[in-house]
Each structure stands twice: as C-alpha cells, then as structure tokens.
C-alpha cells in the first residue's frame, strides 16, 4: 500500500537555509545538505528545497547544493524556485534532483510543463501552485485564485481549473500552497485541498498552515492529500517528524515509521 509522505521544506537563499532551524547547535547550521541529511535520518520521506534566491547569477550555487544533498541524503529530493526553461530543469535533474517544481514560469508559459514532461517524464514535473481564497457570494461559491511571486501578484486564474490544466499538460504531481495559511500555523486550507484532490488524478502535496500533527492528519484524512509539507514547525522544533508520523499512524494513516539512518 502506498504510504503517505511527510515532507520538510527548506527555503534556500544564496546557498544557505533561511528561517530558523532546529539544528542551531551545528556549526554549519545553515548548510542545506547537512540539514537535509538530518531530516532524512529523522524519518523525512522526501526533502523539498525552494530556492528563493532573487538573483539568477546565483543559480550555480543551487546546483552545487543539490549535488551535495544528493550525495548526503538517500531520500528523494524535489527542487523548486527559478526554473524557467527545460534547460534549467535538465540542469537541476542532472545535479541530483528527483523532481522539479515549476511555479511562476508555468503561469508565464504553460507549454513549458508539456515540454518538460515529454523530455524528462511527467513523474518529475511538479506543478507548484500558490492559491489565495476568494470569498464566495450568493451567486458564486468559494474559490481560489492563483498568485505568483510569493503572493504579490494575482493572475486571475482559478486554482482548481489551473491544477487540472497543468496536469493535462503533463504535471505528475501538484504542490498546493495556501498563501492565506502559509506561515500562520493555523492549519491547512482543507477545502482547497479537497477541491484540487477531487479535480486531478495525480498526487497532491498539501502545503501552508501546518501548526501541529493534527493538522497533518486532517490534510490527509479530511482533505485527501497524498503528502503533507511543512517548514517552520520542523525548523523550530515545535514538532518532530516522528511525532507527526505517530499521530498519522494513530489515525490509521499508513506511514513509514522506521527511520532511514545510514
């Protein structure tokens, strides 16, 4: 039976992990490969790197980090941020990423998803969608709008329709972030997750709002997510990956309990 995944997300800028992390006692606390290996040992089912480096000239640093991580953590690695072309995706894959998340570039050029799926296979193309809730009216039900650039730019696209479109074009997974909930630790947007899970037939990774293990349980048992992603609760040591797995197992969700220490 396919197990549900728990995924820590590391935001990387200029080659260092930004935001607080739980491994503050390490001399190399901000080194992404070191942190990724620690999370892998702690039972992470996958690691996501989001490169939030603003300057394109720093891309070489990211490739070096991906390669060093691929050498230090024997769990899958998804890399996102700044991938604008098939050549970008190829470089990230060859450096050691298993999957590549595309966000803004897919809005600017949806055919990029199709090209990458044809070249590399749909299983390594992740559609990363940031969604903001639009309050429903009497005539219109609640909906979500796709936003880009960290929520600073609205696109007018409906998030559920957009997810369907990207999957039709070739995305093999959807990384779905609620911009409203992101960083709040107030729980995932379950309605958003449910709407997208119902609309697509590929795995959906829930992101944005994880505050406690019960939120992750809800994202899977109520939302139908295949995987749950979180950043700050792990980085700040509010909850461990093991405690999340235990809560999921207690709720009857199949998870991988044994750590992968190597």
């Amino acid at each position, binding site marked *: 039976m396919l197990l549900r995944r728990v995924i820590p997300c590391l935001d990387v800028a200029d080659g260092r992990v930004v935001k607080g992390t739980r491994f503050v006692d390490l001399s190399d606390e901000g080194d992404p490969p070191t942190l990724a290996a620690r999370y*892998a040992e702690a039972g992470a089912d996958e690691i996501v790197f989001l490169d939030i480096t603003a300057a394109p000239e720093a891309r070489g640093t990211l490739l070096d980090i991906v*390669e060093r991580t691929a050498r230090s953590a*024997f769990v899958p690695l998804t890399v996102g941020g700044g991938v604008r072309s098939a050549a970008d995706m190829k470089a990230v894959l060859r450096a050691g990423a298993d999957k590549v998340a595309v966000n803004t570039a897919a809005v600017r050029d949806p055919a990029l998803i199709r090209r990458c799926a044809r070249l590399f296979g749909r299983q390594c193309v992740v559609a990363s969608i940031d969604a903001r809730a639009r309050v429903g009216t009497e005539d219109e039900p609640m909906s979500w709008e796709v936003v880009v650039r960290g929520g600073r730019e609205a696109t007018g696209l409906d998030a559920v329709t957009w997810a369907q479109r990207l999957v039709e074009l070739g995305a093999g997974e959807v990384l779905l972030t609620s911009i409203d909930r992101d960083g709040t630790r107030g729980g995932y947007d379950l309605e958003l997750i449910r709407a997208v899970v119902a609309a697509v037939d590929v795995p959906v990774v829930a992101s944005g709002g994880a505050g406690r293990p019960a939120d992750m349980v809800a994202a899977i048992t109520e939302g139908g997510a295949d995987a749950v992603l979180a950043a700050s609760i792990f980085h700040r040591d509010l909850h461990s990956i093991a405690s999340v797995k235990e809560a999921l197992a207690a709720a009857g969700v199949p998870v991988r309990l044994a750590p992968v220490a190597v």
Partner: protein
Amino acid sequence: MTEVAVVDYGAGNLVSIQHALERAGATVRQASRPADLVDADVVVVPGVGASGPAMARLRRGGLDRAITDAVGDGAWYFGVCLGLQLLFERSEEDGAEMLGLLAGSVQRVPDAPRLPHIGWNSLERVREHPLLDGVADGAPAYFVHSFVGVPDDRDTVVAQTEHGGRFASIVASGRVMGIQCHPERSGIDGLRILGNLVRLAAPS
C-alpha cells in the same frame, strides 16, 4: 572491487545512483559510449520517463547493442525504474521496441487509484533472492513511475508491490535484474540492496 558502469544516455539524475553505489563499495564509472562498458562487472541502466525516447537515445549512441553484448559476455544487468522496463521486449506506452533481455511488456500500473505512483511502498517478497539479503519482507522503498514491467515468466518476479493492483517491483533471471523503485533514494534498505548487488557481481 566490483566495477560498475552506469549508463548515461541523458536521462536525468545519475549523481544519486552513482554515489549510492560507491557507498555500497563499487567502483563506478559513467558510460556514455559503448567503449565505456568494456570489462564492467555490472551495467546499471538508470532513468525515469518514457521508454520510447529513452530507447531512441540508447540507439543513437549504439548503447543498446553495447548493453546486450556486455550482458551476452557475462556482465550483470541492473535496471533501475525505467531501466527495469527497458529490459522487456515492447512497451504499450508508446509501442517502443526495447532491449528484449526478458520476455514481456511494459504496461500502465493496473487499477491504480492515482498515477504517477509516487512515494514509499512495500517490497513484498515473492521468493528468496540474494538482492534482498538483510531486507525485511515488506520494507518500504521509494517509487516514482506510471508504467511497470510485466514478465511473461512469473518465476522471474522476486518482489511485488501493491498500488491498486499488484505489479513486479523486482525481477531477476540469472544475471539480468531490474528494480522498479529507486534503491538510491530508499534509505538504509535501498543501500542494502545495492550492497547485495555489488557483492553478488564481485569478480571471483
């Protein structure tokens, strides 16, 4: 020391499998030309994606012949993910003719609730095989794929995995072997499998 040639045909991530094999004790080289396969104890064919484009890339460099010749000369074949699928004769994904080292075809994962099949899933042992020495029955491993190899001879199946229907997740026939999951991404058990491969293929 076991000499492993990892076939590089432009199909993505070679770093992970190369490093995991080195960690498992092998001497590893990347092989992008037929000459690179000479004297290898093991030919590892990695890769993700569709079989048609992969076979086209292998043929362009003459690597398809070089691989089957190497196996004919006694090298071990170890296919990972797409590398398992390429073992078979033909793909129902795109009609591609493949290496034909094992009788059978490549088909979509049967009765799957969601595809691609992405994540950790159990390797259910079907029969004993040295590749699985030290690996518990049902150990989870990482998968990312939509298609699977379907061998004509069910006796070649070493392990199977359930995702809706059941499919062969490890096949082996003599020196020809394939694994549908990614051992290089499957933590300690994945490294054990690669270690078993390296020992199995060690020159005597």
